């Protein structure tokens, strides 16, 4: 049952140096807030009772989307709605543009941020899986300076990330590469977290699949990069046989826990179905192109 939010402090910082001093002053009782679309709901359940909320939404360095040094750089404060309509994102990482409509609802997409979604690391969320599929780098910042963490190493366990205390996500950087991307999920209602989902990035060269990255969500403690299913496709012509091989290889990639949606075997089934749907989608695209 929900309650009103607990009594707490609130302060808004305008720059990273201000943030570091605020964090130093408030220590472990401080909780950083960006879009707040998860955090504020957890306050209502008293799942978190921060001493002081530190609002980072007006730190200009954490905003904006640009192409720099061969990478698409997406500021941590980029809201889902902004991500969905950004022309650079559409051009260089269409997987993200395609993921946005699957995230919650319009009113939530107007506030929630990519940095917040990655930092919260819900295993059923779309964006963590997408950034792993895109082989992105999570750029973090702290009083000690910047770190660059490959997305596949960033998600360490259930709701856990490689972020250290006092460290925030500053941006996500995605290597520019002419990749195809697609994402699909199965959810009970539109906007719900997925029971199972799949984000894929790959290249197609002369009908052959190159460097595929199949990343499943809602089936583990974080995004699951399916190494065997990806390997079953790599270098092969995309056809019914290679798709079936990827589906078969998936059995050794996934170890889904039982959750409120159903038993592990149901998740495995959904993952196989999604694999067929997403990969056949690429096949249709190729046929149209040919």
């Amino acid at each position: 049952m929900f309650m009103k939010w607990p009594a707490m402090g609130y302060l808004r910082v305008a720059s990273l140096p201000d943030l570091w001093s605020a964090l130093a002053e408030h220590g472990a009782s401080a909780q950083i807030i960006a879009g707040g679309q998860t955090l504020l709901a957890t306050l209502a359940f008293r799942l978190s009772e921060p001493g002081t909320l530190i609002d980072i939404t007006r730190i200009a360095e954490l905003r904006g989307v640009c192409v720099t040094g061969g990478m698409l750089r997406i500021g941590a404060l980029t809201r889902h709605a902004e991500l969905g309509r950004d022309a650079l994102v559409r051009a260089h990482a269409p997987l993200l543009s395609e993921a946005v409509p699957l995230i919650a609802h319009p009113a939530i997409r107007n506030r929630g941020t990519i940095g917040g979604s990655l930092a919260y690391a819900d295993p059923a969320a779309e964006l963590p899986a997408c950034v792993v599929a895109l082989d992105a780098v999570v750029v973090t910042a702290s009083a000690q300076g910047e770190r660059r963490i490959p997305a596949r190493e960033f998600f360490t366990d259930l709701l856990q990330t490689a972020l250290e205390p006092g460290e925030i996500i500053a941006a996500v950087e995605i290597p520019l590469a002419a990749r195809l991307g697609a994402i699909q999920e199965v959810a009970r209602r539109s906007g719900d977290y997925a029971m199972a989902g799949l984000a894929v990035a790959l290249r197609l060269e002369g009908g052959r699949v190159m460097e595929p990255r199949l990343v499943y969500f809602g089936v583990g403690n974080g995004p699951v990069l399916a190494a065997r299913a990806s390997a079953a496709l790599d270098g092969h012509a995309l056809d019914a046989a290679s798709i079936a091989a990827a589906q078969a290889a998936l059995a050794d990639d996934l170890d889904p826990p039982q959750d409120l949606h159903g038993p592990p075997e149901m998740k495995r089934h959904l993952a196989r179905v999604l694999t067929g749907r997403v990969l056949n989608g690429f096949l249709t695209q190729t046929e149209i192109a040919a």
Partner: protein
Amino acid sequence: MITLTVNGERVTRHVEPRRHLIDFLRLDLGLTGSHAACEHGVCGACTVRVDGEIVRGCLVLAASLDGAEVVTIEGLSDSGEVADLQANFVARNAAQCGFCTPGMIMTAADILAHGGTPSRAEIREHLSGNYCRCTGYQAIVDAVEDTLKARLMAADSDLRAGSALRSSEAPR
């Protein structure tokens, strides 16, 4: 202390950090049109506009809104922007118990304001975060669809009238 604009009026108030936008509007400003229901971001009854975009009022800290522009159902209704939508809600009996209606109108106004020609499926998708516990969804979507069609027809006839005007002006 925060200073913001609510329905066009400048408001300065002291707010506690634990106050969300909906309690601020309802309890501090007496604007009770926006409804507090689930209060954890699920039901959409508290939908309001902040800086032109719809948000869940229960998932916004009032304290964070210094300088913001907030429009509630009261302001939207008074502006006349949704008079046709409201008339269609009545015509279609899309307000049953009425509890979800302010949030539904705010969200429906959002898709209508974004232009384009959304399909019935797109309207349903846009409204999917607003719950109606009377389950009157068909009538609600009907009302939004009727409004959209009427607006598109009006825009089309404006366009024709405009081009007729231009062609009649041409020989001058």
